[in-house]
Every structure is written in structure tokens, then in C-alpha cells.
């Protein structure tokens, strides 16, 4: 941005030179700026064509498909394809049936997934960044390299490794055995952890769920099912994703911490602030924009979880790792219900927008009232 005000830059150089060069230009040419107009669009043309053809136009095409009865054969623009209005959306939202049940289950699963992954990865990333930020730390580069490595590795490769780690005779269960715990068969275990918790506390039995919760249905799913919590299988995916993505967010926090003026920290030390006071009252408020950004990117990313589900669980066990992104894929490609599949994608898009807006609002609301978010008058 600093140098982008090029009129200022040009002025000292050009005025004298320009008249001299002008006669050498083609007589019928539209002049240097006019030529730049054509050249500008020519330069941008490949990107414009590719993004237009494979990004914008497809979305319009998909919007049409989500409103049609196209069954996957031939072109969706052919005359045999009919406009069906909001029928595909209704099947997912208002009409009783398997389609809506599956969609609601996928929303529930993904909601618990987001609820766990976003805070955990943010806290882990922030913790690692704060620990690495100290001035005299031996091996800082080594630690940074190690933590960020999973982020550059293929999600498929990481998923394969975790399938082994979390297999019933895998590394995690072997570790648990060392401390005398009999680990679950992670990826085959559909039990929701909230239900398990209630069972452990003796409050409810999953085999005979309380009638008050099992009897009431909201959007086709009983309250008992809504409140299941993430399944054990989903928790292993949560663990994988937090482990993988924390490194990337850690780098963002590190960059923010490095941009903090040292003088403010020193002033806090002189004023006798303890380390934890400095963290809560000085550091956190000053890197608040980055915290906000990490939460937003995390929220948007976690609502789209697809790769890990595709490789590791395919929505199993008992549909407890089914997510809207994966359901949208199988509904289209496997069941050939293209209208419904694209409708899921658009509803998911809306869900992402709504959650992002809610998150913005919640974080802004606290401004000035909570100690945590009070900004120093810098």
C-alpha cells in the first residue's frame, strides 16, 4: 500500500520524458493509458476466464440444478429437465423423511465437531505461540517446524496415520493400556459422548432413554438424539483435526505477537503486572484481531469438513460422522439425487454465513464490558 499511490511516484520521472517518447508510438494508437486498458484486461484474462468458468458459472448452474429434477443423465440444461421450485429444499428442511433425518443428523454431527474443534485448536495454537514467543528459547525453529509440519502434509496421508493410531489394536489404545484403561474401538464406536457421560453419572441409560427426551421430536430428530454429543468416532476425527491445524494458526499468532511493541510489555512489567495479568490485560487485548481472525477462519473451515470423513469413516459408524459436505457429495454422486445434493451445499453455505455473523456479533457484543476484551488506549 505504501508505494501504490503511483501518481506521486511517477511525477518526478515522467513529465519531462513523456513528450519525447510520444512520437515513436504508433500514430493510430490510443496512447499509453488506452493501450494499458486493453493490456490490463488481457493480463487478467486467463484468471478471469478460469475463475468465471469454473467458479462463478458453476454456482449458477448448481443453483438451477438445486431447483430442478435433474437425475444426472445428460445435461441439466436439456429440455427434459423440469423446474421443481423449492421441492429439493423442502425435502431437506420441512418434509418428514429419510432425506431430512440424514441432513439433520449431519448438521448435528458437524455442529458438535465445530463446537469442539474451533476452541481447542485456537487455545492450543495460542498456547504454543505464547510459549514459542519468549525471547531466549533454544530450538525455537525446531519446535515451529515440528508443529507446522502436519499442516503442509496431505490430509489423506495424515488420515491414514490416524486410522492406524486410533485402530482398536493401535497406538492410542496401547498407550491407554499402559495406564490401565481399556480404550474403545474408536472408529467403530457410534456412542455419543454426552449420552455416555449421562450414563456414567447414572442419569440416563442409552438403552432406555428418558421418555421426555426421546418422545419429543424437533426437525425429525428426537431431543435425545440432538443432545447425543459427538460420537467416539467423531472425537477421534476432532483430535486429528486439532492436531493438524493448530500449527497453521500458531504461525498467525506468532506473527501477531512479533508485531506487538516491546515498550508496552515493558511498561506493564515496570507497573508491576504479574505474567498472567500481562497476558490477560495487555497481550490478549492487543492480539484480539488475530484471535478473531483465527476463530472466523476456523469456523468457516470446520463447517466444511470433507477430506477426513471421505478417507476415514464415510459417515460411519451409525451416521455419526456424516457431515453436510460429505452428505452433499454422496447424495449427488452415489444416490444421483443431484437437486438435493446441490441444495445441501447451498444450505451449508447459508449455515456458514449465519454462524460467521453470529460469531461476529457475539464477540463484538462483549466489547467494553468484559475485562478480557478491553482495549488499551494505545
Amino acid at each position, binding site marked *: 500500500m505504501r*508505494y501504490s499511490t503511483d501518481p506521486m511516484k511517477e511525477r518526478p520521472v515522467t513529465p519531462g520524458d513523456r513528450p519525447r517518447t510520444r512520437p515513436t508510438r504508433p500514430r493510430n494508437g490510443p496512447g499509453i493509458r488506452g493501450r494499458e486498458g486493453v493490456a490490463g484486461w488481457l493480463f487478467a484474462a486467463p484468471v*478471469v476466464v478460469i475463475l468465471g468458468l469454473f467458479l462463478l458459472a458453476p454456482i449458477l448452474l448448481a443453483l438451477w440444478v438445486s431447483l430442478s429434477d435433474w437425475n444426472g443423465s445428460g445435461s441439466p440444461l436439456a429440455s427434459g429437465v423440469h423446474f421443481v421450485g423449492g421441492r429439493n429444499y423442502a425435502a431437506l428442511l420441512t418434509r418428514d423423511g429419510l432425506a431430512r433425518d440424514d441432513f439433520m443428523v449431519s448438521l448435528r454431527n458437524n455442529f458438535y465437531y465445530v463446537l469442539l474443534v474451533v476452541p481447542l485448536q485456537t487455545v492450543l495454537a495460542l498456547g504454543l505461540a505464547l510459549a514459542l514467543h*519468549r525471547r531466549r528459547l533454544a530450538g525455537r525453529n525446531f519446535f515451529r517446524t515440528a508443529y507446522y509440519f502436519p499442516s503442509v502434509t*496431505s490430509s489423506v496421508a495424515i488420515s491414514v496415520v490416524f486410522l492406524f493410531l486410533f485402530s482398536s*489394536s493401535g497406538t492410542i489404545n496401547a498407550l491407554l493400556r499402559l495406564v490401565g484403561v481399556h480404550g474403545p474401538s474408536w472408529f467403530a464406536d457410534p456412542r455419543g459422548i454426552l449420552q455416555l457421560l449421562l450414563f456414567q453419572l447414572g442419569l440416563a441409560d442409552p438403552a432406555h432413554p428418558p421418555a421426555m427426551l426421546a418422545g419429543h421430536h424437533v426437525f425429525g430428530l428426537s431431543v435425545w438424539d440432538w443432545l447425543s454429543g459427538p460420537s467416539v468416532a467423531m472425537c477421534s476425527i476432532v483430535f486429528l483435526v486439532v492436531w493438524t491445524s493448530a500449527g497453521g494458526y500458531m504461525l498467525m499468532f506468532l506473527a501477531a505477537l512479533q508485531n506487538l511493541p516491546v515498550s508496552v510489555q515493558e511498561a506493564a512489567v515496570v507497573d508491576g503486572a504479574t505474567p498472567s495479568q500481562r497476558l490477560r490485560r495487555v497481550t490478549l487485548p492487543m492480539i484480539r484481531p488475530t484471535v478473531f481472525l483465527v476463530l472466523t477462519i476456523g469456523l468457516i473451515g470446520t463447517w466444511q469438513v470433507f477430506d477426513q470423513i471421505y478417507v476415514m469413516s464415510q459417515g460411519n459408524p451409525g451416521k455419526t460422522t456424516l457431515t453436510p459436505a460429505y452428505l452433499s457429495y454422496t447424495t449427488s454422486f452415489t444416490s444421483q439425487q443431484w437437486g438435493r445434493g446441490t441444495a445441501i451445499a447451498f444450505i451449508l453455505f447459508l449455515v456458514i454465513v449465519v454462524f460467521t455473523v453470529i460469531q461476529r456479533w457475539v464477540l463484538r457484543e462483549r466489547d467494553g464490558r468484559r475485562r478480557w476484551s478491553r482495549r488499551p488506549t494505545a
Partner: protein
Amino acid sequence: MTRQRSRRETLRSRAARIAGLAALVVVAAVYLYPFLIQLGTSFKTDHDATAHPLNPIPQTWTTAAFRQLAQVDFPRWALNSAVVAVCVTVGRVFFDSLAGYALARMRFRGRGALFAAVIAVMAVPSVVELIPKFLMLNQLGMYDSYAGMIVPLMADAAGVFIMKQFLESIPASVEESARIDGAGPFRTFWSVVLPMARPALITLTILSFQASWNELPHFIISRQSPSLSTLTTGVASLVSGQLGSGNRFPLKLAAALLMTIPVALVYLTFQRYFVRGANEGVDKG
């Protein structure tokens, strides 16, 4: 302040420092041990893998997993991944820097709108584009071809953004003098601007290579022939397909190991560019 108190504080901060270092070491172990396990298990027998999951060192070393991989089309997947990654990277670096230059330096009607469109495209969640992309490839007759796998990835909005930001930060005077010497826009771009943009070009090259090498969803929806399978789709089919039945973990882990090596080498060599790429996200916000 008494001396005692300051000494207590030094002790305390030293204890905190040691505790912090210990935590970092433990976390580093959590981050590196899975890769050690992966490396070791690739050379184990099937039985050894499940019998001693905590020990990365094989009881008996065997390369059986790698020999089996050679028989399940793994070389073909690797070749496809390499072809796609190279084409996508070359295309992305060239097209993104062309567009980035146009947005940074050239004055033309609609530039503001174009930049706004680039930002808007970055904001669209990629999962929403998945099925639409298939529909379009199908419509254009590009489904199940190298073209369909490569061309849609050859431009990305984030890359344009990175190039634009970088080019704006270098002084315009050099290009101005090139232009005054009679160089056309493309010549100015090619022989004056690009050489100056080397750091950004390296960043973009590395990020594009890594992204296309690791790409999974696009290759799921743009092809179906096994002969067009990449490492990502191929290894995924190893896990979830017929070969996935039974615990053939050495085979799967060896496949995952091999596909990780190229990116790992690039990462260890060009680490600072990865860090810069990750931090572009901060500027975007």
C-alpha cells in the same frame, strides 16, 4: 525492593521457563511420534504392526509393503500427481502474477470491480463449489480428463491477491523507465517485473505445488477412471476400498509415507516461504 523478593522472582520465572520448555518438548513428541510410528510401521509385517503399535522399530525389517505398492498402481498415481502438480503450479504462478500485475499497476476500466470480484471469490467456501465444478466439467465435456483435473486449478484468487500485494510494495520507477525505453506491457512484465518479484514467485510456487499435490476433493469430482487417479484419491481408495478390508497397515502407511516425502522435502528446504504464506492470512483479514 528487597533483594530477597527479586531473587524469589528470578527463581519463579526460571521455574516457569523450564515448565514451558518441558511442555513444548512434550507437544513436539506428540507431533513427531506419529510420523516415527508411520516410518517404522512401513517396514513391519502386518502382524508386527498390530502386535507392537507403540514401538516404531520393526521386529523384522521387511520391504514387502513397498513391493506390494508397486503392484497396486502406486507408480501410476505418483506420475499423475506429478503431472498435475507441475502443470497446475506453472499455470498458477504465471496466470496469478499476470493478473496480480494488472491489478497492482495497470490502469484500466473495471479494475476496482475485478479486484472486488477476486476478493469475493476467495470468500466462497470451497465445499460449495465441489458439485458445481463437476456440473460444469460435465457440461463442457472435460469430465474424466487431465484437462478437467488441471485447468480449473490453474488460477486461484488467493494467489492473485498475494502477487498484487507484493507487486504494490516494489517501486514503480524501474518499470516506468523500461516503458519509456519502449518496452511493451508484456515485455516490461516479463523481463523487469518478474525478476524483481522473485520472493513472491517462490512463495506462490511452493504453495501451489503443495496445494495441488495434496488436493483431494477436486480429483474426486473431476475424474473416475482409475488410470487418472492421483496419489490422494489412490491412497484414499487403498484405505476405503477393497484393499482397505483387513488391517494391512504397513501397506497403507508406506503409501502415506511415500506421498508425504516430496512435500516434506520442499517444506524443510523452503520453510520461511511457508511461514510467509501462512501469514498472508493475517493480512487478508
